[in-house]
């Protein structure tokens, strides 16, 4: 079941999505499996058999879930979205392989790209693609750059990239097409930790530039 607020990237819309998501976390209905927030929609996963068993007399689980979700969304829309947003500082060593490309595409120097990238606070709109991969934005118009035409087969964990108005961090070594501009020594995904992901949707992120020496000192990956 998809609750869509349109095909748009706006903080206010994303606030709605996340408050609805959190509302189902704290007050699930019988048969709810989980909900997944994205930029402007919430997907509700449920078990039809549990929904029907939990609500005797109901013929269609889909219809019932639709009614429950609509009612919840309406109630939520009447109140301002209220939830805690944590701010996370992410150190970045700006030396990405696509830094030159992003600079030349936008008629900027590398230093200007770096400054524009870390001079604002980003919102985590959603987590997806990989365990713990944060879709953040929006980046300054001046550095917004389309994805690489041909994705890399391996992007190193910790790499920070730009795709259009989005910026993101690769939590794991993975294929990927984002324009790489830097690298963080922080592990944003650690399977041994609780929680396993450093970031969640609605968090705020500030990037702080660091030197190569600082990067190596703080490196949690110990890349070989």
């Amino acid at each position, binding site marked *: 079941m998809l609750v869509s607020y349109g095909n748009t990237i706006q903080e206010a819309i994303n606030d709605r999505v996340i408050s609805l998501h959190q509302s189902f976390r704290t007050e699930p209905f019988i048969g709810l499996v989980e909900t997944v927030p994205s930029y402007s929609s919430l997907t509700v996963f449920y078990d039809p058999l549990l929904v029907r068993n939990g609500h005797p007399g109901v013929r269609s689980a889909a219809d019932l879930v639709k009614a429950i979700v609509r009612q919840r969304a309406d109630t939520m829309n009447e109140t301002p979205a209220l939830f805690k947003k944590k701010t996370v500082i992410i150190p970045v060593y700006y030396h990405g392989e696509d830094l030159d490309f992003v600079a030349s595409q936008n008629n900027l120097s590398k230093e200007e790209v770096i400054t524009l990238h870390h001079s604002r606070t980003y919102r985590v709109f*959603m987590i997806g693609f990989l365990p713990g991969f944060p879709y953040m934005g929006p980046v300054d118009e001046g550095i917004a750059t389309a994805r690489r035409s041909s994705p890399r087969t391996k992007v190193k964990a910790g790499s920070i990239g730009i795709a259009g108005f989005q910026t993101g961090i690769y939590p794991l070594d993975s294929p990927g097409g984002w324009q790489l501009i830097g690298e963080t020594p922080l592990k944003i995904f650690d399977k041994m930790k609780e929680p396993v992901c450093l970031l969640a949707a609605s968090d705020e992120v500030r990037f702080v530039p660091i030197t190569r020496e600082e990067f190596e000192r703080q490196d949690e990956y110990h890349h070989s």
Partner: protein
Amino acid sequence: MSIIIHKQGLLATVQGKQRYGYRDAGIGPGGAMDLFAMHAANYLVGNEEDAAVLEMNFPAPEIVFRKDALISLAGADMDACVDEIPLPVWKPVLIKKDSVLKFRKPVHGSKLYLAVREGWIAEKWLGSSSTHLKAAAGGYAGRSLEKGDVIEFGEPSFFLTENKILPWGFTSQELQEVYPVNKAMRCICGAEWSLLASSSKTIFSEQSFALNNQNDRMGYRLNGPRLFTEKPVEMISSAVDAGTVQLLPDGNLIVLMADHQTTGGYPRIASVIKADIPPLAQLNAGDEFRFTIIDAAEAEDALISRQQKLQEIKAAFRQQYQKYFQH
């Protein structure tokens, strides 16, 4: 007190229950590609449906049993044999200590599940023993099985003098219902179905598609007629699920499978219903099939009647098991 992988297979993994509750962190449910066969394998040996099983592709590993075991095979037929004696699929079998289980050739299907009474002992990660290959977590060291790996299982309550096929199992009629020949995969319209050109809508439900040779646990790419949206579509990412049929920029389709990404940015034109993911999962490269569109209510009924049927089978096998092992 275990089995040992004597010869490595192609991406054999430990799969347990699905890992729910972490999709918002980008971690999908994962688990068996063919949940019907996985659950069936467990029911055959009297387990709960979610006990950990081994999922195997051809070539499958060669396995040496280091103690007596009650096992079952369900799903694909790979001409299994133990000490050169053929073993059936969809039936429980008693295997003597020191037996060697081999799989000689692919006969039909592509995913085979090996269950053992009490289940394989596997590493849990986030509440599930399914192997998460990307995160390298859960199952057996978070990876596929390699030569020399030792997998433990619970202590059996019986002593064997010979290998023996037990007298219960799935009937061919029961299997026909799940895996019919020339199956049309039932699906419901996806969130972006309406964006398809009308000619593409017709093609989708009338023409055949075939499994491409680029398919893995994340998704099955299809060969066939190319489909197009009415207008160019620029989408932002949102959630996807196993069974989601996405339209790629080149007009080809991909059906997302167990280890799919949690979100995607391609148009979701349809979703294969849960009850038809098992026959889809069992396809091999080149196998042809069609899609047929049904409504959401029919999809729900199909899933529920499947679940009820499985519960009946589970209860029947439990009885057989208790009767057999009482004396």
